[in-house]
């Protein structure tokens, strides 16, 4: 084994010439020794271990010996590890993808191992299926495809499919894993219905809850209303695509009590009614327990309407609008850095709240030599004293990570006036600007702002507002209502794209793709995702509220992507 694989060792030895390199490669692949089979002691455990090994090969490109896999990729290059993990092209779902002119074929279990035996009479469909009709893969044919790049009919696979130097042990493991890959539908969907849930943390005000649910219910009504006559059109043979329509059912999962009990509440909800995906959601506390639940159960969660998403650690299933307050903190730090206002900065926040998260992210994003002082609000603390302290510092910037109520109580302190510019977060103020009468309270009133300015902003959101108008939904909270509608539209686009392949992983991969293409706007001026990306909006502005009777914003920064 050592000798035969030496060519593929990470010793920076390169393939010298095109022809010879490939020749050697194939020669060495052929020379891989066959491993002796060991008699399994406990067949079930062994099978599970084998599948787990195969999953690691598939997702991470790490072989059962713990070494990165190595393979001859396109353009005569040898790639290894994550760059040749099956999942990087065929994706976690196995449904494949398309990139440029390359179509990556599905390698889910039914596509690989089942007989393609549906009798097809339509010449049009026959022509479409023609390229996919080939014998089922056997272990030997699979090994040949992986090592030498020929499909089960002997047709060559495109050079973008790497040719792997894979041991017999790894080959057994990957075959065992592929036999399980997307072999049946994910939970939350049956022949008639598909189920979704939205999660609401305790303490959310009744109006916000109502606003979100009204948009969701109007949307679901449209999806599942009898007006579509889907069932009858299907039975009449009008539907070309076999049974991809499901009636939408939305569940509302309202959490109660302390956050350490949410996990078990979510599990109880899920046990009673498995759902295919989570959509939207509300709450001012950290989203961590809901995030962890979604990761553990492998349930996609599409755009909760929150400020405290989970920004580190594993994230396969949780899509967020942005990094929330951490993004605001980074945008502001970059703005201050670039405009060299870091000499003396004061930040005010309330202990144990969202503001503390923002303050900590802000501190990490500021240069280490910046003079940054923290002023912490405590229950029953004297706002007047804090305001005086902030004013006395004569700082280049006073940053306050506070909500609308704390902002008001700080601003009520009249004396002394704040000479420095005063920075606030639009998100922390509940996606609202400070009132115009606060403008004279500081040297300048500035806001970290997530979206485009007037009049572009209004025209961009028009489509969403017209929809709400037509549904008799009054516009009360622009950010919340527009973003709810965006989340529902992305959910719908994603479900539409997977057709009758009800795999949650495949859905996640389609969401990565549809977000930039949906015509429905979100609050944010620029959203995009890509493979593995989980935060749709990646930047923000710093705007200044201009003095005068009417609210008018001046863009100080342009679009900042920290």
């Amino acid at each position, binding site marked *: 084994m050592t000798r035969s694989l030496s060519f593929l060792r990470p010793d920076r030895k390169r393939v010298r*010439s095109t*022809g010879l390199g*490939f020749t050697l490669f194939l020669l060495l692949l*052929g020379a891989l020794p066959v491993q002796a089979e060991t008699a399994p002691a406990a067949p079930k455990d062994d099978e599970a271990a084998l599948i787990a090994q195969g999953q690691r090969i598939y997702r991470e490109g790490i072989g059962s010996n713990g070494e990165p896999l190595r393979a001859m990729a396109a*353009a005569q290059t040898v790639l290894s590890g994550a760059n040749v993990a099956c999942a990087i092209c065929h994706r976690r779902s196995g449904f494949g993808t398309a990139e440029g002119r390359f179509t*990556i074929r599905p390698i889910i279990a039914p596509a690989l191992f089942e007989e393609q035996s549906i009798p097809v009479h339509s010449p049009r469909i026959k022509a479409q299926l023609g390229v996919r009709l080939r014998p089922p893969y056997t272990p030997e044919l699979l090994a040949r495809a992986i090592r030498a790049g020929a499909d089960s009919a002997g047709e060559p696979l495109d050079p973008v499919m790497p040719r792997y130097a894979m041991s017999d042990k790894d080959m057994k493991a990957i075959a065992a894993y592929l036999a399980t890959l997307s072999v049946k539908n994910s939970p939350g969907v049956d022949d008639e219905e598909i189920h979704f849930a939205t999660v609401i943390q305790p303490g959310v005000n009744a109006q916000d809850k109502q606003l979100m649910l009204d948009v969701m219910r109007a949307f679901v009504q449209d999806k599942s209303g009898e007006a579509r006559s889907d069932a009858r059109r299907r039975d009449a043979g009008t539907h070309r695509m076999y049974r991809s329509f499901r009636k939408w059912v939305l569940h509302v999962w309202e959490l109660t009590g302390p956050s350490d009990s949410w996990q078990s509440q979510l599990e109880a909800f899920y046990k009673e009614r498995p759902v295919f995906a989570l959509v939207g959601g509300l709450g001012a506390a950290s989203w961590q327990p809901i995030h962890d639940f979604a990761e553990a159960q492998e349930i996609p969660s599409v755009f909760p309407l929150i400020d405290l998403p989970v920004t580190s650690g594993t994230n396969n299933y949780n899509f967020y609008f942005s990094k929330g307050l951490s993004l605001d903190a980074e945008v502001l730090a970059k703005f201050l850095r670039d405009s060299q206002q870091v000499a003396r900065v004061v930040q005010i926040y309330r202990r144990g709240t969202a503001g503390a998260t923002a303050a900590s992210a802000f501190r990490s994003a500021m240069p280490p030599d910046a003079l940054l002082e923290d002023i912490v609000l405590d229950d029953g603390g004297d706002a007047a004293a804090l305001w005086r302290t902030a004013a006395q510092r004569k700082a280049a910037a006073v940053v306050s990570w506070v909500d609308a109520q704390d902002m008001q109580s700080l601003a009520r302190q009249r004396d002394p006036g704040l000479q420095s510019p005063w920075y606030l977060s639009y998100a922390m103020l509940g996606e609202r600007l400070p009132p115009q009468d606060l403008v004279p309270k500081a040297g300048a009133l500035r806001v970290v702002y997530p979206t485009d300015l007037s009049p572009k902003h209004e025209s961009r959101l028009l489509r969403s507002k017209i929809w709400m108008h037509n549904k008799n939904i009054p516009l009360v909270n622009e950010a919340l209502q527009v973003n709810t509608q965006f989340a529902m539209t992305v959910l719908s686009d994603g479900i539409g794209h997977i057709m009758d392949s009800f795999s949650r992983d495949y859905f996640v991969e389609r969401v990565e793709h549809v977000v930039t293409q949906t015509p429905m706007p979100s609050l944010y001026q620029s959203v995009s995702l890509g493979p593995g990306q989980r935060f749709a909006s990646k930047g923000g502005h710093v705007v200044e509220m201009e003095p005068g009777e009417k609210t008018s914003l001046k863009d100080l920064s342009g679009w900042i992507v920290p």
Partner: protein
Amino acid sequence: MKTITKMHGAGLALGLACALTLLTGQEARAHGAEEHAKMAQALKSASTKADYKRSIVRYPVPDVVLTDYDEHPVKLKELLASGDPVMLNFIFTTCGTICPVMTKVFAEVPASLGAEGRKLRMISISIDPENDTPLQLKAYAKSFRAGQRWTFLTGALSDVKDVQRAFDSFRGDKMTHEPLTLMRQASAKDWIRIDGFASPDQLAAEFRKMIDP
């Protein structure tokens, strides 16, 4: 804009022909003569396909300021006019199918060129600039052991789109991009455009031909 196109594939065809000869023993034993013949035929047909397309083109370089992975502003026009021959490609760090190959090829080109590549400057521009922050690009460059003469650039979305349009590589969405390499002799007007996956040795050969026609 003048365009000259040539097809390349002879090198690989020869390589595959050799490979087939050696494969004969192995595969025939494993899968029987009939199947072997089928596969031999398959590999042969693959080998006759061109693996890249070469053309000569003229592109005006847009006047944009991009950002390298150390967060320094970089005027693209100045970088390209630095007096060194350049190779340029477009990538993004979460791309699965095309970019790891393109980037690995760039990583190997200097060794393929040896001393002749001393003055070569390589540039990779992210086509997903909002996700590919300088920090992200730096980690990506490091994972491919990129050297000092290889610059990774990000920038404003609209500027990066302008650059892609200028080099006729904008395909509407990052997921519809194509493998592409551009190279230019120091201060030359013409670009050599390589569409498709050219190997490090093939790129080196094109480079030599460009330097010393």
